[in-house]
């Protein structure tokens, strides 16, 4: 029964809608309010459940181009995971080390990791852009970005 992609996704969405519905029915209600805070979530939960079931039973109408989008070569999976890991490191250390240090490192290493070998251009871009953006935000727009361990 669950061989097609649509069926698998439909089942996942149906489970999600059941979870959402469960939480919607836990929402507190108050008297004398014609439409309470739980009304719209409950409706949405039921609509999603119906649509998920419809998806399970619908024919796969995706074009060949769409199907090709699902086939990701192994090396690309590695590249995507690598960029994801770099992003996670960036976010984790962003406030501790500060915007400038982390962004310079991120832009340089992300470009290098994705195969850009011109180190001089890479270094210039990864230093100039973050510093320019930091200056615009902090000094022109008065929006404070984390300075981290740097004194400015």
């Amino acid at each position, binding site marked *: 029964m669950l061989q097609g*992609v649509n069926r698998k*996704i439909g089942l996942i969405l149906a489970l999600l809608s059941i979870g*959402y519905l469960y*939480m919607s029915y836990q*929402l507190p209600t*108050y008297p004398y*309010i*014609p*439409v*309470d*805070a*739980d009304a*719209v*979530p409950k409706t*949405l*939960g039921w*609509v*999603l459940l119906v*649509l998920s079931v*419809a*998806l399970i039973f*619908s024919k796969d*109408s995706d*074009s060949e181009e*769409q199907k090709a989008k*699902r086939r*990701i070569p192994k090396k*690309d999976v590695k*590249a*995507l995971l690598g*960029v*994801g890991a770099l*992003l*996670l490191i960036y*976010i984790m250390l*962003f*406030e501790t080390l500060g915007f400038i240090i982390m*962004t310079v490192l*991120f*832009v*340089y290493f*992300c*470009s*290098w*990791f*994705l*195969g*850009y070998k*011109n180190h001089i*251009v890479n270094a210039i871009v*990864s230093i100039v*852009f*973050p510093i320019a953006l930091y200056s*615009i*935000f902090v000094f*022109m*727009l*008065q*929006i404070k*970005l984390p300075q981290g361990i740097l004194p400015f």
Partner: protein
Amino acid sequence: MGAIEGILTGFEVAFSWEGILFVLLGVFVGTFIGMLPGLGPISAIAIMIPITYGMDPTLALVMMAGVYYGAVFGGSTSSILLNAPGISGTVASSFDGYPMAQQGKAGKALAIAAISSFAGGTISVVLLMIFAPMLASVAISFGPPAYFALMLLGLTAIASLSEGSTIKALISAVVGFMIATIGIDPQTGTGRFTFGSMNLLDGIDFLVIALGLFAIAEVCYLVMSRHKSATGSGKEIGSLKLSKDDVKEMSGPVGRQSLLGFILGILPGAGATIASFISYIAEKRIAKKPEEFGKGSVKGLAAPEASNNAATSGAFVPLLSLGIPGSGTTAVMLGAFLVLGLQPGPMLMGDRPEVFWGIIASMYIGNIFLLVLNLPLIPYIARILTIPRPLLISLVLMFSLIGVYAISFSVFDLYLLLAFGVIGFLMRMFAFPAPPFILAFILGGMMEQSFRQSMTISNGSISIMFENNISLVLIILSVLSFAFPIAKSIWSKKKAS
């Protein structure tokens, strides 16, 4: 303030040196981002929002509007030169633009695209100037039921007009709406789906969703095509000159399709992509030599180019006069309005005429700038296409991260951005359209509010939705737009069997 005074105020804003500067900046950035395969107007606007913090709202919006129509304008360059449309609105332009470029007439193709876009853009701004205030004056009498019905129509129309499966588009819209319910309910103060997290009490910021679903998800595809070089962008593009016959041939399609594009742009759910395809098909149907289409026809390129730009201005009609976006891109534009502390809608024309008319007036200048940028400078601008993808990916990620942090100052939102990036990537992978998601997310809160206001007025009776003629007609249209694709698929199945 009367309409004439309003228009004059608008031109005053548009022709001030700051106005001219920001329009130029907007259309340049828009052309730049629109040209890059993968990144469309939604990403372009979302990336630019953080840069507008602290700016004068009128100038910021004039710039954002420039980014929008600039991106549609710029998208055609990569369609013609590389057969890799920068945005979906210019896919139809590649049908005849790319064959023309292959025949060594890339310059001519770019000139036709630029002139048609300019004409489409300018004709539709004139129409926008006429229709937006008319609609705003009607909409001023709209009550909550009419607003609810209007938003419902916007949602059902975009879901039913989306490419691919209607069920998937509807699921996308429902999930977008569900995400909008996260946070404190403004009417009762109940915390909904916050899982006890303080970070979710205010709900999720729209920029997190827009940048995650569009920019980050697009970056994922750029990562997969990172080794592709932009071949062809540096080659000779040939003469940009058009013959008298070319001009004569394109004048008919440009005139007709500008009008059609504008009308399609106003309709909820349609927009530049659908407008360009319909215009292409329409011109092919009425052409004396339809066999030339797809092989480098002047008409085949002029029609979608005029239409997609006209649709862009058309999309501003419901946004400016009703405050309701009809597409994913205008939904993000609405988000930009809200970030800047402005609420588009029928009151905008009276309360903030400089914003309402300033945006419209700036489009005249913007279209002229685009023509100037795209005609003599295009061989140089096209070099943008040779930016190494790894650098481009890193920079887009950097802009997205800084944009989200600068709006919330919360690392939690950066994690959310990453999560929505993954969701956006998976949605693309499994053919769930993202525009209904963002539209439902932005309209969700407003829809719930007007529904509950209506119910409070009627003391809980749903009949209020059908008592007013406007809301009744809009609800019937919503049902029809929902039922139409289902009926169509049943009909085609019956026909096939």
